[in-house]
């Protein structure tokens, strides 16, 4: 199928994201990339766990007293919801509803921005008010790198999806941009799953000691 073909909701294929070779490549490619990213996060998680609460002799900050669940819970909810809204966007893509894709992707971006804002606020609180800066200890370095790597993924996802929305604002769905939306949405789900692990490993296990 040609990339420039114009479609109607009737002629729109069931799996538009995989209808062309390019689309199929993107689909397989993003999954392969995510496999690799999982190993990346696994390495950072392992490091965090082995450096948790480790610092210079006499360090008085520990995960149990530093972390709270309230903010983390709100952040979790924001990100989980954004995952859901990106599912809606994919649902509309299946039905060849370009406007629906854009709106729900837009909401996903807004929720993601909310999450990012809270994360920045949290980092600011820890650094400025708790004296828990990046160079404070091995514990702080590993915490910021773990959560920050996830935050960086969120930023990349936001730039990516925003770019897609702006680029495809006026031109509707076709077999060229459908795989791009689809890949971005898979990536966004992945970011969400990683956060669930961060919430569990860093915040829940942190608070429980």
């Amino acid at each position, binding site marked *: 199928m040609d990339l420039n073909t114009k479609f109607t909701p009737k002629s729109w294929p069931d799996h538009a994201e995989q209808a062309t070779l390019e689309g199929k490549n993107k689909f397989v490619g993003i999954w392969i990339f995510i496999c690799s990213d999982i190993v990346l996060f696994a390495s950072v998680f392992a490091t965090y766990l082995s450096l948790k609460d480790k610092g210079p002799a006499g360090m008085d900050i520990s995960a149990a007293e530093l972390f709270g669940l309230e903010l983390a819970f709100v952040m979790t909810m924001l990100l989980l919801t954004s995952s859901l809204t990106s599912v809606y966007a994919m649902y509309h893509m299946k039905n060849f509803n370009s406007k629906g894709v854009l709106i729900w992707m837009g909401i996903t971006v807004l929720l993601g921005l909310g999450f990012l804002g809270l994360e920045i606020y949290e980092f600011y609180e820890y650094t400025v008010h708790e004296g828990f800066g990046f160079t404070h200890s*091995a514990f702080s370095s590993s915490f910021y790198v773990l959560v920050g790597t996830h935050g960086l993924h969120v930023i990349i996802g936001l730039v990516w999806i925003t770019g897609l929305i702006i680029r495809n604002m006026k031109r509707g769905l076709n077999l*060229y941009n459908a795989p791009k939306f689809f890949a971005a949405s898979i990536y966004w789900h992945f970011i969400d799953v990683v956060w669930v692990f961060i919430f569990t490993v860093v915040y829940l296990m942190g608070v429980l000691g």
Partner: protein
Amino acid sequence: MSSVAISKKTGFGATLWDYLTTVDHKKLGNMYFFAGLLFFAIAGFEALLIRIQLMVPNNDFVSAGLFNELLTMHGTTMLFLAATPLLFGFMNAIVPLQIGARDVAFPFLNSLGFWLFFLGALFLHLSFFMGGAPDAGWTSYASLSLYSPGHGIDFYVLGLQISGAGTLISGINFIVTIITMRAPGMTFMRMPLFTWTTLISSALILFAFPPLTVGLFFMLVDRMFGANFFDHTMGGNTIIWEHLFWIFGHPEVYILVLPAFGLFSEIIPVFARKRLFGYSSMVFATILIGFLGFMVWAHHMFTTGLGPTANAIFAVATMAIAVPTGMKVFNWILTIWGGSIKVTVPMIYALGFIPSFVAGGVTGVMQATAPLDYQLHDSYFIVAHFHYVIVGGIVTAIFGATHFYWPIMFNRVLNEKLGYIVFWVFFIGFHLTFFLQHFLGLMGMPRRVFTYQADQGWDLYNFISSIGAIMMGIGVILLVVNMLLSIKGKPVNQRDYWGDGRSLEWALVTPVPFYNFKQTPLIRGYDPYWIEKHEGNKEGMTYAEPLGDIHMPHGSILPLIMSIGMFIAAFGALYHPDGVSWSVPVIILGIGITVACMILRSFKDDLGYHVHKEEIIALEEELYGKGGNK
């Protein structure tokens, strides 16, 4: 020399632009090959300096500090910047042909992968001119690499980070290519072994490089931004580096040696004129080696003090790898058994490989024996062992494949006579250099020593070893001479140069046009070209589609600019610990360039272009005379 593009006689500028922007897998393959060769020569030269220094006791040919820089750069360059790109060169040039694809899945990323690798490598080598190269060994163990003054280690961290990203991108690219772009009928169990090993090796890259990226990132922020991952006074732990490094480092060996196995699995059947023995067990063994490769990293850390239980587990797991590797060796021997062996240069490399690699393998099992490894670890025994594996296994594969695939890659032939001379000089030099090093290790000589005192019983062997290294150097120079001579040689202009080609790439008449097969071939079994040939097909293959327009991707300069962006950012990070005011702006500028290119690319649709049927017919007539590629 290169594969022919539509454009005919062009000026130097146009050719250069063509190479800077190309996304053609064959051209990128050639670029990988020559870049790899360049770094192979550099690292080989460093090895020669090392061996000259160690030729006699108490030598002062190079200083202690320079020696450490040389040994670090030798190891780092050989593994990351020579062996990997040389093999990537063959993967790029051959794998799409072997599976009947037009190109790789992501031609743009293929180009990006190359340029990231190349600029990362360049960055690393700039260290020699900018205040000193890294000097903590290719393993760069954390306590020493944090302690090391100057910017050497910073160059190592940043250079490898950039080139590692390139390698990872290429790995993903190969996996997707092999999964989605096989010609009709090319099932997984009909894929040639080189394609299989490329797939598994890429999967290893996929899982092994992220831990390295993470480790390098920790080192980067520790050295340049005040983090404390490895500073034990701040709660850090240097053993984390060892784990991350070896979780990457051990699979890295298989990333390199599996494609080498694949190359030999292509060469041996052709010159034995016999189907590869036990194909399915070869595939199984490849997968098993790849899988076990991730289970054994701590055998590099037997003396780190992980405790007897960890050592015992990793010892047994390591020994287990010998089983699938042994399966492969026996399968190769059974392939030549009952065959009709024609000795050619590629074949003699394959024949030399088997005993050399077995020797490297058995010493590997000896070191897997943890309590024995307490003696062997970090002695010259291990130096001998891994050179037997890497030179005996990987370098012989690369040299053999260079002769084997030269007709396809460059439409020329390497001189046979000179090829034999190179083989014997290099091969004898290799054994002379490394065989005695086993004994040096057993006699108590630690590795990575810049000198040694006389009369500890090591003088004679070190001297002989250095003589061998010089022979290896001569061999490599002669190989390059052979390559240069081939420019003047007669074009091959035929398919199946060796006469007994079996897999798909031999069905193409050289020079291979930029779109590879003009019609996608239909694969009817394992060794598809052999099948067609022996059924009397004179047209190479049976085709799956009528001749029609071919869809091809556009070239792009963006990958190069994106890589340059990372290159610039790396300089910002490098000078950050010096407290210069421009470091952060430069980092932002560099990353900004890269991001801007990405945005530019996504805002400009790249739908590729079509080569029309008439153009194809015209080009084929020009290349092969009337009638085109028949």
